[in-house]
């Protein structure tokens, strides 16, 4: 009983948050003082007739009071009409959904990398309390957050693509999701949109390896910031948990260290990491915009960046709403995981 009620409560709250976001986004589109809502629809350099403008005004119901416009706006959103993007030459929602798998694949790999490396490193750092490890952890975490993500990506490209290539060593590709030649030679049938998954399903090894190689650099770049944060938090949390009384009792039972860490300590220590998972995703999505631009990765981030260059505010604003929705969904999943891991939360 407690579990379901908890989930429903969170769902209601997050729904309200989304509504708020839609209001902010709407305000940006129609309500900004000094900004003409029609400006976004006019491609620079392309003449547009008065009739077209009037028709547009009517369609957007620009003459109605703002609250009324908002209601129409939200109904449109719920119907799937998020506007039309000049940049993608597609309706916004379609354009975003079409490129979403690429971004998700990238984000998932980044999360796998950062948690897969960060959690064990944090645990090790907590267990070895010597000076050298402490310093190393501090260095990693501070460097991680000080690094401009886009610069890291470029440097990595420089080193792993250019310099390695120059030296004749096997290098990592610098752009796109899959090698052009490979794509031509063994075309992939899209099932999920995730090249790694689809190629496995189809048994297409060439595309599989190529896709993985292309994922490495961008995913690693994206993972760096959250990696530093995860190591830091995991270490602090683990230290805190290991000081607890129940660990002393577990030790007094004669349980081996391995079991104490995994069964008793980890479940308690992992919750702060889960909390940051929510915020980390936000940083990841923001970072994706930059990383996708650096590596020419055809995801929603790069689309948004192109929209900026194109003054396509409909797209950019739609992107914002889309990202907010994704974050809300992820936060919901995190909340559910919370309740699974820590039973006290359900009550």
């Amino acid at each position, binding site marked *: 009983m407690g579990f379901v009620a908890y989930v429903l409560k969170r769902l209601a709250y997050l729904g309200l948050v989304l509504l708020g976001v839609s209001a902010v986004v709407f305000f940006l589109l129609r309500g900004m003082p000094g900004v003409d809502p029609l400006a976004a629809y006019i491609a620079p350099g392309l003449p547009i007739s008065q009739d077209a403008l009037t028709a547009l005004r009517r369609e957007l119901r620009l003459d109605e009071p703002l609250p009324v416009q908002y209601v129409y706006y939200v109904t449109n959103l719920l119907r799937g009409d998020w506007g039309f993007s000049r940049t993608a030459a597609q309706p916004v929602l379609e354009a975003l959904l079409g490129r979403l798998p690429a971004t998700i694949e990238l984000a998932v790999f980044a999360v796998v990398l950062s948690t897969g490396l960060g959690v064990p490193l944090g645990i090790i750092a907590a267990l070895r309390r010597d000076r050298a490890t402490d310093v190393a952890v501090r260095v990693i975490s501070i460097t991680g957050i000080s690094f401009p993500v886009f610069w890291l990506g470029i440097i990595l490209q420089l080193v792993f693509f250019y310099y390695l290539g120059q030296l004749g060593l096997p290098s990592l590709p610098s752009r796109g999701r899959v090698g052009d030649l490979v794509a031509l030679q063994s075309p992939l049938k899209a099932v999920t949109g995730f090249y790694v998954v689809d190629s496995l399903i189809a048994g297409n090894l060439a595309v599989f390896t190529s896709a993985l190689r292309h994922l490495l650099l961008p995913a690693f770049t994206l993972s760096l910031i959250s990696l530093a944060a995860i190591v830091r938090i995991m270490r602090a949390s683990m230290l805190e948990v290991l000081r607890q*009384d*129940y660990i002393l*009792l577990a030790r*007094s*039972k*004669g349980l081996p260290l391995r079991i104490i860490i995994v069964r008793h300590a980890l479940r308690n220590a992992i919750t702060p990491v889960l909390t940051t998972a929510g915020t980390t995703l936000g940083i990841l999505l923001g970072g994706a915009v930059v990383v996708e631009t650096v590596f020419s990765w055809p995801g929603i981030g790069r689309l948004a960046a192109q929209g900026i260059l194109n003054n396509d505010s409909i797209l950019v604003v739609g992107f914002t709403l889309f990202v907010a929705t994704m974050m809300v969904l992820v936060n919901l999943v995190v909340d559910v995981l919370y309740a699974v891991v820590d039973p*006290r939360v359900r009550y």
Partner: protein
Amino acid sequence: MASGGERPAVLEVRDLGVELGIGGKWVQALRDVSLTIRGGEVLGLVGESGSGKSLTALSIPGLLPGNARVVGGSIRLMGEDVLGLSEPQLNRLRTRSVAFIFQNPTTFLNPVLTVGAQISEIFELSPELLDPPGAGVRPSRRSRRRQAWAKGIEYLRVVRIPDPERIARQYPFELSGGMQQRAVIAMALARKPHLVIADEITTALDVTVQAQILSLLSELRRSIGMTLLLITHDMGIVAQLADRVAVMYSGTVVESADVRSLFREARHPYARALLAAVPTIRGDRTIFQAIPGSMPAVSDPPAGCRFHPRCPRVLPHCLAVRPLSLLVGPGHAVACHLYEERAE
């Protein structure tokens, strides 16, 4: 060692010394602590907070905190020297020989694991505690797990937890303090240890629950002949449960005797003051007899006998020389200069 009708010693602590690292220096926290507990006996270890009772107890299964180190003496459990053991060997010791029950069950139970899981893991760790399988039957992981769970429920029943099947599936925060403490006691008994150490186990509970736990312990003592090191600051509990008593003050044992002798004729001034401090009602007044002063800090002890600043019968000798523990009667030892001439 064991003469005639005496039972063998389960625990023998001799001249134990422990230092604590405080503020960058090592200070002596325990000095020449000696205890003996025989099989089936309950030894009450009494003293105010800070007297070193918990530290002594923690040394036995090797669970001293990181800033403590043993600097002398010996601890023998069932005749085996404990201080020289490596960590894996200590683990075996903790699994099968010594069980610890702590003061505050709420913080000592893992909040994210069910009660049943926390007790059955003991059996999963040591399958030898389970009932042996039938001839030729190789138990699978699943069946061992089920057996462990069932065994855990059995022990929950032993400690008089009502409806143990349901309780086992619950989380510690869903239980009352008294039930939590019973669960911890069950976890201690499950290992069938040679020695159970109970450190202030009723202090965090209210009086009625305290009485229940004490009666449980009393019954367990009768039914399974439990050997118990009972740490408390409450003389009433000692009177109820203990066979022998050891009184600690500022890191050393000042008097040890069987419970009757201590209550009837305590010798050490501190022990006498402790007994006198139990509030009595005379006529229509309640008489509180507090001991003036307070226990010295570990880092700055007085010279000579540590009790001398508060002692009503202090001699000049006491300020300079530490008294050694001497026998003043059968099984009755005191560390006080007042009794030195009478010692044999």
